[in-house]
């Protein structure tokens, strides 16, 4: 029975001691320790979140870089394509022009040839005409030297004229 009867003196001292211990420890131990632990946890949390943010930003930057690179690549591609097209176009233009020039020159040559030919033909005709007249004169002269023959020719001619 003695064992389970609380002794008043010990209860008193326990309460007093515990109260003082609680007050002292609360002010000088628990507050700084818990405060420091919480601060540290807060620090860790914020460090983690800022690291996360940095990571995200990095990712964004990387994506941006990738995008810019891609754009540059596309632009280069486009430029190359343009240049190629222009080159092809220039070549074909030049070809066409050359063709046109050539055909024009040929045409002119042909025209020139034609006119030359005509002139030559006309000259040849005149020449042949005068030559024929000359020949005919000579032949007629020779033919008309004989009386018979003159008559005969007239007759032939008359014959021919009647026939017509």
């Amino acid at each position: 029975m003695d064992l389970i009867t609380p002794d008043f003196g010990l209860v008193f001292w326990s309460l007093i001691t515990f109260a003082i211990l609680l007050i002292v420890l609360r002010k000088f131990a628990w507050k700084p320790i818990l405060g420091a632990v919480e601060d540290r946890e807060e620090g860790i949390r914020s460090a983690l979140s800022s690291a996360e943010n940095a990571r995200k930003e990095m990712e964004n930057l990387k994506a941006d870089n990738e995008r810019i690179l891609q754009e540059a690549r596309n632009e280069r591609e486009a430029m190359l394509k343009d240049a190629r097209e222009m080159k092809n176009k220039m070549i074909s233009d030049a070809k066409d022009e050359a063709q046109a020039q050539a055909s024009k020159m040929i045409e002119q040559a042909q025209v020139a040839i034609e006119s030359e030919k005509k002139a030559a033909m006309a000259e040849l005709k005149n020449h042949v005409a005068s030559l024929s007249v000359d020949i005919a004169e000579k032949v007629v002269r020779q033919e008309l030297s004989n009386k018979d023959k003159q008559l005969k020719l007239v007759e032939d001619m008359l014959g021919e004229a009647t026939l017509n």
Partner: protein
Amino acid sequence: MTFNTFKRVVFTVLFLSVFSLGFAKDSKDGDADKAFNAKEMIMHHVKDAYGMHIIDINGQPISIPLPVILFTDNGLTTFMSSEFHHDYNGEVIVEKNGQRFVNVHEKIYQLNEGETAVMYDAEHHPTNAERPLDFSITRNVFMMWVSVVVLLLIFLTAARRYRKSGDYVPKGIASFVEPLVIFVRDEIGKPMIGEHKYKRFMPYLLTVFFFIWINNIFGLIPILNGANLSGNIAFTFALAFCTFLITTFSGNKNYWKHIFWMPGVPVPMKIFLMPIEIVGMFVKPISLMIRLFANITAGHIIILALMSLIFIFETVAVAPVSVAFSLFIGIIEIVVTAIQAYIFTVLSALYFGMATEEAH
């Protein structure tokens, strides 16, 4: 690391063996002249005492005298416990201010006016003496103050570490203390009380946890010889009373509603539950008080009883068995020191949590 653990185990074992032997030696020398009374020896160890008994050398007890503080009808009376000359059978009478005091089984009685010797009734209770109001610094009070000094040394040093190093990196004793503090916060405070309200109760929970734990440990240290503070019902009563006060004064509307007018049950049930809940208010701290007291005292009694076997059988042959068993119990007791501190703190936190819980 492994080596350190090993070293620690070896030291613990050595420590415990010395501790057990210390008890054995003490009890043998103390009662060498008369028949060995195991119950008396055990009770003497488990209960409080006026002097701090350290050891017996050649049958001569060595103890630290502690002040006796009494309030009698004539006012305050103080003297040192050494004036009883280690007597606790009511034989030595100390005279102060015309009052006579005797120590009967570590309880001081004031002899009635004119009496010169204690008379006992059949149950060995003094018949001609009264107990004065006793505020003596007993060995339990003394050990309590030692434990307070140790606690302050540990935690104030640790706290200073934090203040000094601005980077909050725990070093030295702080790195030992911090996991324990965080344990109390994260495993006791937060889950039992709730994330938003636990902060208010943390100082109490931490203090109670470490105060009980260190006194449990002190109870196991042999040279302190059964400074069984946390196995003393007065101490556990004081702590349970604190828990009761805090629970009662932090109780919100919802808590009192649950006690006096239980929501969600029919009216006859409300009336039926009210007395049960009111009794429950008091039973909870009483269970705290008895649990801690009984667990710690039981551990001490078992160890002492096992040691007593040697003297009951009066043979050394039993000694190895006794030592082995009390060693085994002693190791369990080391675990129990922490477990009981933990349980007391968890249940206190649980009651605070109930008191501050919002209606749901």
